[in-house]
């Protein structure tokens, strides 16, 4: 939109609740910043354990986000476009990881890939172990983050004007080209929102991870787990690490937005 074209102004009163909301979010963050022990900050976040946790968190959250996109986009498309009544139930089921306390999600995952789990026993025979490995971290993060992507995208797909897709089809575009070249670009802002949400959720994931993956430095101890541990040992370090987590998330979100938004 060129600067000259005016979208209708928002009513002035919305500024009041918007400001309240912003204050609700920003005040605690500000207060937290005040509590960071800045003198010790570099030392606190520079320890080997912190660096290992940060590296692991970035790697696993990135991997989980990729998995969420690869699995979640098709899921959202199928759910949004299936005409059948039956998908209503499916849609509800897919959202369940949203409400489960993460620890319960972890238990549920363990009951699949754990030693006594549905698949765990079979996998064990094949010499494959998922639980308590980095793969388990990715699994846990993907499980909890996937619904975020699916839900943000599905609403947008449902609302999107199918006229453009029909136009593309009459131009000879096959279903794949329509999906990748028309449908997804049309819902790009929601897809981006979904990616950011699921990345953020994966990055902050704690309960399911500690349950399925344990907490081994360098292998499964992500930044939130490290923060949890530090809280027991050195609350200042926990605050400093939380701050680091915020910085990382902000940087990644800024990067994605910069590239993704027109």
């Amino acid at each position: 939109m060129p600067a000259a074209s005016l979208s209708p102004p928002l009513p002035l009163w919305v500024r009041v609740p918007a400001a309240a909301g912003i204050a609700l979010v920003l005040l605690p963050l500000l207060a937290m910043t005040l509590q960071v022990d800045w003198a010790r900050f570099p030392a606190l976040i520079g320890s080997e354990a912190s660096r290992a946790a940060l590296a692991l968190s970035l790697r696993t959250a990135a991997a989980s986000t990729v998995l969420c996109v690869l699995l979640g986009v098709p899921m959202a498309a199928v759910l949004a476009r299936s005409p059948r009544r039956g998908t209503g139930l499916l849609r509800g089921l897919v959202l369940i990881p949203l409400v489960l306390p993460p620890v319960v999600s972890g238990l549920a995952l363990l009951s699949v890939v754990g030693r006594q789990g549905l698949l765990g026993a079979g996998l064990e025979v094949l010499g494959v172990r998922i639980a308590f490995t980095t793969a388990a971290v990715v699994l846990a993060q993907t499980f909890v983050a996937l619904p975020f992507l699916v839900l943000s995208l599905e609403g947008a797909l449902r609302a999107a004007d199918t006229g453009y897709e029909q136009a593309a089809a009459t131009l000879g575009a096959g279903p794949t080209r329509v999906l990748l070249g028309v449908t997804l670009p049309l819902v790009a802002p929601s897809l981006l929102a979904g990616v950011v949400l699921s990345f953020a959720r994966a990055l902050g994931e704690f309960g399911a991870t500690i349950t399925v993956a344990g907490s081994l430095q360098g292998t499964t101890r992500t930044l939130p787990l490290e923060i949890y541990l530090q809280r027991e040992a050195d609350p200042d370090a926990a605050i400093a690490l939380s701050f680091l987590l915020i910085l990382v998330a902000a940087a990644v979100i800024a990067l994605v937005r910069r590239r993704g938004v027109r």
Partner: protein
Amino acid sequence: SATGGGSDAGTGEEETTLTVFAAASLQEPFTELAERYEDEHPGTTVRLSFAGSSDLATQIAQGAPADVLATADTVTMDRVVEAGDTAAEPTIFATNTLTIAVPPGNPARVASLADLTEPALDLVLCAPQVPCGRAAADLATAEALDLSPVSEEQSVTDVLGKVESGEAEAGLVYETDVIRADGAVEEVEDPATGAVVNEYPIAPVADAAEPDDAAAFLELVTSPEGQEILAAQGFGAP
């Protein structure tokens, strides 16, 4: 495929990895114990996994690659033993007693256990379902105290947090927690709190990949050297 499970890491000729699962509250002494062990056993790396005791129990039941398990209470350990996941009877290697923690300056002027029954006092305890809460309940029964907390926390760390932040005017925590808090809380001593003792058991895990190292580590923990490290963090002798 499995990325770095303990059993895989043990396939090297010399290099062995000992995996110790320990309750989160044991983080500091066990980190030190692990370093000591590595010094004494070159070629062995000790990996530590800290979590709530019941998390650890669940993980071991699901085949987590642990060689040694140390929990913060005997109830959880008994469950692991019952499930047949330990290789030997657990040993009590440390004890801990409750004490009263108050915010710096003791704003509510708590002087003794009896003051905790004051109805206007914002008292915080652990929930009776978790070890520190069980201990608090036992203490209340033993001392015939009628405690009405404003919150029954999930873990002793949460109790400590409430006291540190001043939200709570008093809380029952372990001696070790007060030491951990490093001045963020004050302790109000009352000899009566010694009536209830919490015990920390340790045991080798049934499917241990490194049973020899597990035994050696257990030995270190219960040795005078190990006990010294534990004592420095406020843990009592078994």
